[in-house]
Structure formats: structure tokens, C-alpha cells
């Protein structure tokens, strides 16, 4: 962990989402808000389309870090702000990209900063993962 350098990219991944992904997450998480699977409800509340659950995005955005660490137990703190929605097209879906970089290194491990983008825009703010040494 001491070999890490601030700014170093430790992991990156691309996640294609479809409406099926949202339905699966709704079932697994118990969040059945219809804005995540019904176009008519999303339109009625003024949204640009059916949105991915923020917690789905938070959920997969940390996975490249888990894979890099090789042990999910080394994630000791994980936080995000939900800043922009991910609109999932019924036919073409959506692709969300994750880049994980070293934000800080100290005696207790490291802070990994996630840049999570949909199209040209970031969708999570202050997405930070505290990881402890093995």
C-alpha cells in the first residue's frame, strides 16, 4: 500500500446497464420505486426517462476497487453524493464508466477516489473509498 502514488489509477471498468439490470436491482434491494422501471411514471414526475437507482450506481462503482484489493473486507468506508441521474434507454440502455485513482495514502491505508461518468458527465460526487492495508 505504501508503494501507491497519489493520482495513480488502480482500477477501471465499464458497466453496460439495461432495464433488466434495474429490475434485478429493484428485486434484490427491495427498492420498487416505479421511476426505476416505468416510463409513464418517470414522465409524470418530470424526469427525462427511467433512472438507474442511485444505490445501484454506488453498488457497482466500488466493485473495481474490490477486485483490485482482492478482499471486500478491506473496504472500511465508502461514501458518495448523488449528483446527476443515469437515464437508461429502454432499447439501448446506458453505459457507466468508473475510474478509481489513489487520492491519499497514510498510515491507515489509502483513500481511493472514484470518477463515475455517464456520457460526458460525472454522476457521483465525492465518491471515496477508504481501504486498509492487507
Amino acid at each position: 500500500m505504501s508503494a501507491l502514488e497519489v493520482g495513480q489509477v488502480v482500477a477501471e471498468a465499464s458497466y453496460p446497464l439495461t432495464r433488466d439490470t434495474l429490475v434485478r436491482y429493484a428485486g434484490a434491494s427491495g427498492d420498487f420505486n416505479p421511476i426505476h422501471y416505468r416510463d409513464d411514471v418517470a414522465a409524470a414526475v418530470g424526469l427525462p426517462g427511467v433512472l438507474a437507482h442511485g444505490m445501484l450506481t454506488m453498488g457497482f462503482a466500488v466493485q473495481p476497487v474490490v477486485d483490485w484489493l482482492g478482499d471486500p473486507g478491506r473496504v472500511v468506508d465508502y461514501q458518495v453524493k448523488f449528483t446527476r441521474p443515469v437515464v437508461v434507454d429502454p432499447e439501448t440502455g446506458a453505459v457507466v464508466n468508473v475510474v478509481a485513482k489513489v487520492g491519499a495514502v497514510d498510515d491507515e491505508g489509502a483513500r481511493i477516489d472514484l470518477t463515475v461518468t455517464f456520457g460526458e458527465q460525472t454522476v457521483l460526487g465525492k465518491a471515496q473509498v477508504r481501504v486498509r492495508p492487507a
Partner: protein
Amino acid sequence: MNPAIEGRSYPPTAPYLVGREKVREFAKAVLATHPTHLEPEAARAAGYADVVAPPTFPIVVTAATLQQLLDDEEAGVDFTRVVHGDQRFSYSRPIVAGDELVATMTVTSVKTLGGHSMVTSESAIADATGAHVVTATSTLVVRGDE
């Protein structure tokens, strides 16, 4: 949204038994592929008693505390106007299948800004021995009348 609920604590939730298949279902739903989430053998090889829940799994356990807030008539949270603002999980140890978890929620802050309200709550999640496992902190934004 009633600012007077700031500081309010709710009773501990009924115990949530973390099942192996629930962990695997949740892991697949968040596109997790690390074998410690999916295969008991791999989890045991890594030193865990059973499959390890993904970092955001506590959101499943806090469904019960969210319900407490929504059921609190004095709080006055209209769920159809709620947007998730931020979320944090601070761990003492990872969640593993077989854990029996109890969540205790405290409303730590209620702020009003430009007609919107922001309510921040902390749910401290403990295991069957009473030891702390993880604290889930979330801010919900309740949109005002437009």
C-alpha cells in the same frame, strides 16, 4: 418536514438474518464478480465464515429504519418527494452470511434550504453480540411544493 425530529432516535429494528443466497442475489444485482461475494469456498479461503456482502449491502438492512422514518407522522416525510442526496457506510467489519443484524437509527440533522428539506440519519448496525458492524449514514432531500 418537521425540523423538531432532529436528534430523535428510533427503537432497534427486528433482527435481520443475512442469508447466503440473499448476499449472492444482491452481489449479482450490483454486478459484483469477486468470488468472495458468490462462492462460500472462496470466502472461506479468504478467512470468512461464509460469503461476504458487497459494501453497499447495508442498504437492505436499513430498509426497516427508512420505514420507521416514513411511518413517523410527526416527521412528515412525503416519500413521493424524496430524492437520495448522499450515502455513506463506515465499517468495523464486513457483513458475512449468517450475521444477525439490528439497526438503530438517529436523525442527526434536519435542514431547510430554499423550500427543500434535507434529513440526515445514521443507522448503527450491530451483530447478535451487540458489536458494531457498520454505520449507514444517508441524506434524503425532500422537495418542497413547486
